[in-house]
């Protein structure tokens, strides 16, 4: 392992929602450059909360958060870190608010200080990368669920983040869309943490898989070797185990 600092490092994080029981108790997590981390765990284990802590939407009760080698303490640290971290929300409808695809994808670059022409150029390029040519002028509202998910990803990639945090990216997607999304992920040269309750999807997309349980991250070297072998009688229809 190189001496470069981890992209993201959480140490000893504790957190609980007001009036709730503790969700995290001394949680540690590290994402190094080039890594693709999968995080599994039942719904309600706080996977989304973990991402919101990393980007500073929530504040931990205890523990330290570092990104790109610097500690993140106050809001301005997080604001700076957010420019380099792209968070994909579970529900694309929470992420997209512009009338057209192009405007939504150009929104981030504009916020980073690009000129309208540069932002448009970045947006068009990102859309092409994801196979969304010709979608530029489409109203967001008329997109299918899978298309919205890809456009959400485009809005992040257009900002050229160094880390992606993907929150249940396959939720509500059908298999074809899921396969396409996976394919795109595998082509991206970017470190990411992916949260999913679908272990099969994690296995295909991540290099290392951790489990989030009992308020901590449990690592398991063998889990990455784990492969499913299915043997069963089934009908003639195409069918799927996980969607």
């Amino acid at each position, binding site marked *: 392992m190189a001496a470069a600092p981890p992209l993201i490092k959480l140490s000893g994080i504790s957190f609980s929602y007001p009036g709730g029981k503790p969700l995290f108790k001394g949680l540690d997590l590290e994402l190094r450059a080039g890594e693709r981390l999968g995080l599994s765990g039942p719904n309600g284990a706080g996977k989304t909360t973990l991402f919101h802590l990393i980007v500073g939407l929530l504040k931990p009760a205890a523990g330290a958060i570092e990104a790109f080698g610097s500690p993140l303490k106050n809001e301005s640290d997080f604001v700076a870190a957010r420019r380099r971290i792209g968070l994909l929300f579970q529900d694309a409808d929470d992420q997209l608010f512009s*009338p*057209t695809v192009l405007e939504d994808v150009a929104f981030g670059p504009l916020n980073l200080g690009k000129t309208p022409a540069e932002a448009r150029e970045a947006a068009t390029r990102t859309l092409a990368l994801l196979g969304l040519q010709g979608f530029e002028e489409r*109203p*967001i*509202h*008329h997109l299918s669920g899978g298309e919205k998910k890809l456009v959400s990803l485009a809005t992040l990639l257009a900002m050229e983040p160094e880390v992606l945090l993907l929150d249940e990216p396959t939720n509500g997607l059908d298999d074809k869309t899921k396969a396409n999304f996976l394919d795109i992920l595998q082509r991206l040269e970017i470190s990411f943490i992916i949260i999913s309750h679908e272990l099969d999807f994690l296995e295909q997309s991540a290099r290392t898989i951790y489990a989030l349980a009992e308020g901590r991250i449990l690592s398991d070297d063998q889990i990455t070797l784990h492969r499913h072998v299915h043997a069963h009688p089934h009908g003639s229809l195409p069918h799927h185990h996980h969607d």
Partner: protein
Amino acid sequence: MHISEGVLAAPVLFSGLAVAAAGTAIGLKKLSLEQTGRAGILAASFFVASLIHIPFGPGSVHLILNGVVGVLLGWGAFPAILTALTLQAVLFHYGGLTVLGVNTVIMALPAVVCHYLFRALVRHRPQWLTGAGFAAGLVAVLLAALMAALALVFSDESFLEAAWMLGVAHFPVMVIEGVVTATCVSFLNRVHPALLHLEKES
């Protein structure tokens, strides 16, 4: 734009109540039951949107958005705005019960005027949509400020200077409202144009 409890004189309060009652009656008559639910949910978004702080210089302003409500609801703006103001009066104490009528008229009457203004401009020249939206947003606040000022002056002539200042203070809001309303309208026109022609269904 709320006038607080205790400021206005009896004739102004009662005229406000009468005009608000008439406008609300017309509005309710024009809304079918189905549209009542829709107006209620739109009133909820009006309520939420009017809580948003928009930066202006070193401080921030609240949007009024009565222009958007007018464009979307026509006469339905009266009951919708009355509803939102009632909830604000009861839960936030913006305004109050006696001024409910006046405050409703201050916001809803300009909304209805802008509904027809917008419609006339767009029907004349569909390509004026954004401009018509700007006009609707700006005029709605301009008229609201004017009516608030008149309500003050008719209550007590000593309010004259205060009324002037109230009007002038709303000048930047007018421009921002114009921009926001124009953008809103062009957004809705691009994404779901049927929304801008709500009134035709009634």
